[in-house]
Structures are given as C-alpha cells and as structure tokens.
C-alpha cells in the first residue's frame, strides 16, 4: 500500500515526477563524477604544486648557497682581511671577522688554520685553538676550492660556507655561517607556497629545527615526521592532528651525520577551498535546473493534462446526453487537433442522436437501433416467424364527428400514444400507423422465444387500458371507445422495403394480411381481439375462446380463430363453466347436432360476451335448417370482404 502513496496517480504529477527524478538522477551521477574528478585533480594538483614548490625550494637553496659561497669568496679576497689573517693576531682577526660577517649579514664567521685548528670564531669564541668541528667541510673545500653544508650547532641550524683565504695560495680557511631559523622558513614559505619545516631525522626522535608551523601544530608533525620522511619523498597525504595535509619531504644536501629534511605541507582543506566554491556553484546550478525543469514539466504537463481533463469532463457530459458541450482547440498541436476532433465527434454524435430521435418518432426504437447498429441500410429481407398485430379504433369517425380537426388529432394521438407505449413495453415494434390503426410486430427485427405470448399480453393490456380511457372520455362527453385487434403468427419476409433513398422496415406475407383480416373480424363477433390458430397454439397460460372457423378468400383450408380472454387463473369459475359450455355448443354445432347446440346457445345468449356469438350461431343454424348443407359442409364461415 505504501508504494501507492508515493506513486502519484495524476498524470500531471507523474510527468513532473518523472522528469524531476530523471534530472535529479542525471545530476546526481554527474555531480558525483565531477566531485570525484575534482577531488582527484585537486589532490594531484596540490601534490604537483608541492613538487614544484620543493623543486623551487631546492633550487633556491642551491642558488642561495652558491651566492653565499661567492659572496664569502669575494669577502676573503679583501686584501685588508688577508693582511689581518696574516698577522695571526687573534683579537684583530676576531674583530675583522665580525666586521666582515656583518658585511654580508652572516650569523657568524670563523678562521681555521691550514692544520684545522680554529684561529678565531665569532659564534663560539672559546673554540679558538680547538680543532674545527666540521673537518669534512674543510677537506672538501681543499678538494673543490670551496664548499657549503648545513650543520646544527647548539640547536641552531646553519648553512656553513667554507672557502680558503688565498694569498694567493691558501693561508687559512674561512667558515661563514648563515642561520636557518623560523624567519628563513617563512621566507621559503612564500617561495614554495607551503608550510616549511626543517626536521632533523634522529631515529625515533625527530627534531624540528625551524618551521613556519604554529606551535600547536608542531607536535603532530614531530609524531608523523619519520613516516613522512620514509614515504613522502614524492608527495603523500598525511593526517596531522585532526586535519589532512599534502606533504612532501625533501632531503637537504650535505648535512653531516644526521640527515635534515625540509618537509613541505599544505592543508588539503585549504587546497580544496576553491573547489568547494565550485561544488557549491554546481549544487546551486543543479538546484536551479531542477527547479526550472520542475516548473517546465508542470507547465507542459498542465498543457497536456488540462485539455485531457477538459476532454474527460466533456466526454462525461456527452455520456449524460449533453451533446452541446464543446472543448474548442485553438492550438495547432496534437492536443488542439484532438480538441477539434472531439468537437467534430460531439457534433456528429448530436446529429446522430437527433437523427435517432427523429427516427424513433417515425420508426420504432428497436428498428432504429437495429438500423443504426446494422450500419449499412440495405434493401432485401429475410424470412422470419413474426406475430403481427393490427389495432383499430372502432367507429373513430363517429367518435370525432363532434370535434374540431385539432381535437380529433389530439384524441387520436392520445390513443396511439397509449397503444404504442404498451406495445413497446411488451417488446413489440410499431411498424406503422395506418390512419387510426397501428401495425405492430413481435419477432422482427428482434426475435424472442415468447413473441406470441407477448403479443397476446400486449393485446389484453391494450384492451384494459382502452377500457380505462372510457370514463375519462365520458367526462368530456365523448362516447366509449372500442378497440379491435387482430393477431396472427406466420412466416413472413422482413426487411427494408422501398427505394435506396427512402426505406421502410416492414414485413410482408399472407399471414400479415390474415392478421389484418382478423382485426376486421372483431366487428363481426363483437370481441376486442381475434387471433389465428398458429398464435393460439404458440401460447400457454392464456385462456382462449374459440370463435369460429373462417375460410379466407383464396385459401381452401378454413382457419380456426380465437379470442384470448385473460391469463390462466384470472377468470372466475363461472366464466370457465360458461366457456366450457360454449366450446361444447360449438362442438355440437360442428357435429350438426344443431338442436342441442341451439339449446345450449340459447342458455348462453343472455350472458355478457356471448350475446353476439349466440346470435350469429343461432342465426346460422336457422339458415342451415332451412337449407341443409351438403356433405362437404365444414362449419366454416367464408370471409368475402377484404
């Protein structure tokens, strides 16, 4: 259930979420990649800068050293200085040394005789007369003419230059000392753009000789110095205290027995600071592009979903039957085209509905539906078993004699409306109106198994409804109307009859004509409904009264005709007794037992519904008695009229 909550259901939200999530994913991937590249590049850049810094640094030390060597050499060529040395007077020499050291801002200066004994020393005066501590420097100066080295004296680090005093052959050695202290380190820091520390590597106890680091950071460097010296000759990352540094250890040349390293270090965080800004800008751009994309996606999604919603609402309107709804569509894109197509569809639907409405009025709904669903309207037909019903309002002309034409039509329509409603309620189809009559079909265009029963129930209902109209019309001073109905079931031809431009769905056949004739017979027998034998045999549960045998013109076999009286169980016991008596009398008549039949009919003649029948048969029997029929008498009535 939870994913459903997260997953938006609205199309608009889904479009927006899709694009935003897609963009975020792309941004995230590229951000991580760039971030990795930046970190990698930054580290490489910093390390390379340190390498460059260390090269510059070393070159600087070399240049500085050779410059100091040159300067010292020049100084020792000073004639007065050489004369002073030549005096061998210690006090004079010492003061000359102080003077000359000051000339080139050296920290100290000493003179050593050719035997390696210190003649005078400005830093440690008591050294005079003792062997010079850095005999190796003297030895190398004797070999190379001059030399330089770095030595630690009393905890101070000096760059020491040793040159001979030439007159013009060496008469003594001069050692010039330049201190390397924190101030020197600071100068070098500007050059190398890194923190600079000089560390003497005493195994297990490295010592910081000079540094640009604040005192708080020195402990961490001392702790890591051995590792850095061992591993960071070409640069490495080291954690000093609580911060990461890029470090590089570069050995200082010629430092005597204990090696001295210059350790350059740069804070990784500071080196990355510029990249942090870049990262922040990237995040800002990513955020902005996501926001712009979200807004754009919302706009686009709305442009898609708003017309869709409008179309949906319009479609619901059309579903409800409101065809006048229009969505419009000015846009030239697909959505606009969809809107215009929708409007055209609505117009088409409205026209079709209108057509259907009109068709429904001139033809039955079933027929219209059948026609509309069937698509092409074709001439031609099919054979079907159809129950056809004709209705007719008895003496309509007499009924409307006292009415205006409008009133007449109104009255007629009242009847026809009631009749049509009942027909349709029973699944029948009004085929056409024939003046004041109606032709209805049961079984065409739609066949149902109980078409005949439906037709009879329909007829009984019409009889009941028309009887119900009696009091209403009586109130208007109109006579009681009578309706006659003829029903017959037969195989007919059903189809669209007419010309291609104007068609009529109807049925044709002898059975249809028979139904019409049966309707006409209602007047003879004074019954509301007359049905043929085929229909009679198709129905159950409806009590029928046989009326007669009728020989229709053109047919040799007489047709038995019946009157449906009502559904089984709706007649009273007395009525059923009378009906049985009637059928008995009819049987007697047909068996030529006319006296028996007549006696029975005379009893029935007084009963409502039997007067006319009794009169017809009694009259007929009088005629038969007067003119006895031949052997071929079949007790049928020959119908001559149409």
């Amino acid at each position, binding site marked *: 259930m939870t994913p459903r909550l997260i997953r938006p259901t609205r199309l608009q939200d889904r479009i927006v979420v899709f694009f935003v999530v897609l963009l975020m994913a792309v941004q995230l991937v590229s951000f991580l990649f760039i971030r990795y590249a930046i970190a990698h590049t930054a580290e490489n850049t910093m390390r390379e800068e340190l390498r460059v810094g260390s090269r510059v640094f070393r070159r600087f030390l070399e240049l500085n050293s050779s410059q100091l060597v040159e300067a010292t050499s020049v100084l020792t060529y000073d*004639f007065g200085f050489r004369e002073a*040395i030549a005096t061998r007077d210690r006090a004079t020499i010492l003061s000359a040394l102080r003077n000359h050291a000051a000339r080139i801002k050296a920290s100290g200066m000493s003179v050593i005789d050719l035997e390696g004994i210190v003649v005078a020393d400005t830093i440690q005066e008591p050294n005079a007369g003792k062997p010079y501590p850095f005999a190796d420097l003297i030895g190398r100066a004797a070999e*190379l003419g001059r030399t330089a080295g770095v030595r630690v004296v009393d905890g101070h680090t000096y760059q020491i230059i040793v040159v*001979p005093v*030439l*007159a*013009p052959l060496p*008469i003594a050695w001069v050692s010039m000392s330049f201190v390397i202290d924190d101030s020197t380190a600071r100068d070098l820091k500007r050059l190398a753009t890194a923190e600079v520390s000089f560390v003497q590597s005493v195994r297990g106890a490295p010592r910081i000789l000079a540094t640009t680091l604040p005192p708080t950071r020195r402990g961490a460097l001392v702790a890591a110095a051995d590792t850095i010296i061992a591993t960071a000759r070409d640069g490495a990352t080291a954690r000093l205290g609580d911060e990461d540094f890029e470090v590089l250890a570069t050995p200082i040349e010629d430092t005597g027995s204990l090696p001295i390293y210059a350790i350059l270090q740069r804070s990784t965080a500071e080196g990355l600071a510029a990249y942090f800004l870049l990262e922040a800008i990237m995040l800002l751009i990513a955020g902005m592009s996501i926001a712009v994309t979200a807004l754009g996606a919302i706009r686009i999604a709305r442009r898609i979903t708003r017309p869709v919603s409008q179309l949906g609402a319009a479609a619901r309107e059309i579903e409800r039957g409101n065809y006048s709804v229009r969505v419009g569509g000015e846009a030239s894109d697909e959505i606009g085209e969809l809107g215009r197509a929708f409007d055209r569809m609505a117009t088409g639907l409205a026209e079709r509905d209108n057509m259907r409405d009109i068709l429904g009025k001139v033809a039955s709904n079933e027929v219209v539906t059948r026609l509309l669903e069937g698509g092409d309207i074709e001439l031609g037909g099919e054979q079907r078993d159809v129950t056809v019903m004709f209705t007719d309002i008895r003496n309509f002309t007499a009924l409307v004699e006292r009415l205006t034409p409008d009133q007449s039509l109104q009255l007629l329509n009242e009847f026809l409306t009631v009749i049509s409603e009942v027909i349709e309620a029973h699944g029948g189809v009004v085929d056409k109106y024939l003046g004041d009559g109606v032709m209805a079909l049961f079984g065409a265009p739609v066949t149902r198994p109980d078409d005949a029963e439906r037709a009879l129930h329909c007829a009984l209902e019409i009889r009941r409804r028309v009887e119900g109209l009696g009091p209403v019309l009586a109130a208007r001073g109109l006579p009681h109307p009578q309706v006659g109905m003829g029903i017959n079931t037969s195989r007919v031809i059903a189809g669209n009859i007419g010309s291609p431009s104007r068609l009529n769905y109807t049925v044709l056949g002898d059975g249809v004509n028979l139904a019409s004739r049966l309707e006409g017979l209602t007047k003879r027998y004074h019954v509301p409904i007359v049905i043929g034998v085929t229909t009679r045999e198709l129905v159950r549960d409806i009590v029928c009264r046989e009326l007669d045998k009728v020989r229709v013109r053109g047919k040799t076999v007489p047709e038995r005709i019946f009157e449906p009286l009502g559904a089984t169980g709706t007649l009273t016991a007395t009525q059923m007794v009378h009906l049985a008596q009637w059928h008995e009398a009819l049987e007697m008549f047909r068996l030529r037992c006319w006296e028996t039949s007549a006696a029975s009919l005379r009893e029935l003649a007084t009963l409502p519904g039997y007067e006319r029948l009794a009169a017809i048969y009694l009259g007929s029997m009088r005629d038969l008695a007067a003119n006895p029929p031949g052997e071929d008498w079949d007790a049928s009535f020959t119908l001559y009229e149409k």
Partner: protein
Amino acid sequence: MARALLIFALVASLPAAAASIQVNVKDARGAGLEDAVVWAVPKVAPPTRPRHESSVEQKDKQFRPMVTVIQTGTMVRFPNRDDIRHHVYSFSAPKPFEIKLYAGTSAPILFDKPGEVVLGCNIHDNMLGYIYVVDTPWFAKTRAEGMARLDDLPAGDYDLHVWHYAQAAAPAVIPTKLRADENLPAEFTISLKAPLPRPGPR
C-alpha cells in the same frame, strides 16, 4: 759585477779541484719534474758571498719565472713588463712585503731569511709565483726534464736538499760526501699534492 763574481769563483776554486752534483728530480711516476729547487748545504759554514741581485718579472699577468731561487741576502727587483699596474705582495713568513700598484721597475726587496715566499698580485688573483730563499751559494733549478746541476763545490760533506712548490711533503735530505773533481749523481722522488683549484686568468 759579473767579472768580480768570476774572479771570486776562480779564486775560491783554486784551493781544491771543484766537484759537481748532477741531480735528477722525478715525480712519483718517474717523470722529470721541472722547477724543483735543489741546493747543497755544506757541513762547515759556507763562505759568505757579497750581495747580489735577482729579479722576477711580471709579464702577461704572470710572474716570470714562476719559481726563482736565490741565496739569502739577495736583492730582488720586480720589474713590471705589462702596460697595467700590479700590486705584488707576499704574506709568507720569510719575507712579508707589498709593492703597491706600480708600473716599470720597483725598489729592490732584500730577502734575508731562507724559506718559501709565495708571490701574489692583489688585483690579479690568478698570478702566482715563488721565490725560494736558500742559505747557500750552491743551488739550482731543474729544467723541463727534471735535471739540475750543482757545480764548483769544494770537496767536503754536504746535505743535499730539494723543494718543489707542489710537493706533498719535503723529501728527506740526502747527506753527500764530495771528493775533488767528482761528478756525483743524485736523485729525488717527490710525490705531488693535487693542486688546489685556483682562479683562472681574468
């Protein structure tokens, strides 16, 4: 003066027939060594000789000859043959001296103590010369092939010395007994020290 010297020499050689020493100075590899100074010091006090003079020229910013050997008490002049001035000096113990920038010839300098005197020029660092002062009249300087000859030595006992400006250490003195008319050969082998890098001519 030269005649007087000749006369003195003739007179001095008269009491006994003069002997000579043929000295060969070689380096450690056996090659003849030029500019080595050899001298013979008699066991008995050598005869005093009158003062005489010598000279070391400066030409083409070089001392010529580079090595000069003189007897104690010799007056040495430093004639400048260049058209620039020189400032000749020495801080060497036997005779520290200085002749400030000068042209032409200078006043003679008396060398009255034996030993090595290194000559330099204060304004031309590459200039280097030696005056070796010996306390005997019998001295010589080896030629290119390392040979030198000491002549006109009276018979007697001598100590034969050698010195070379590039020697690592002074070779042992060779005691020599000379008979009259004898021509004695002597040989020294000197191991040289590597020369100190020096400024070239500027």
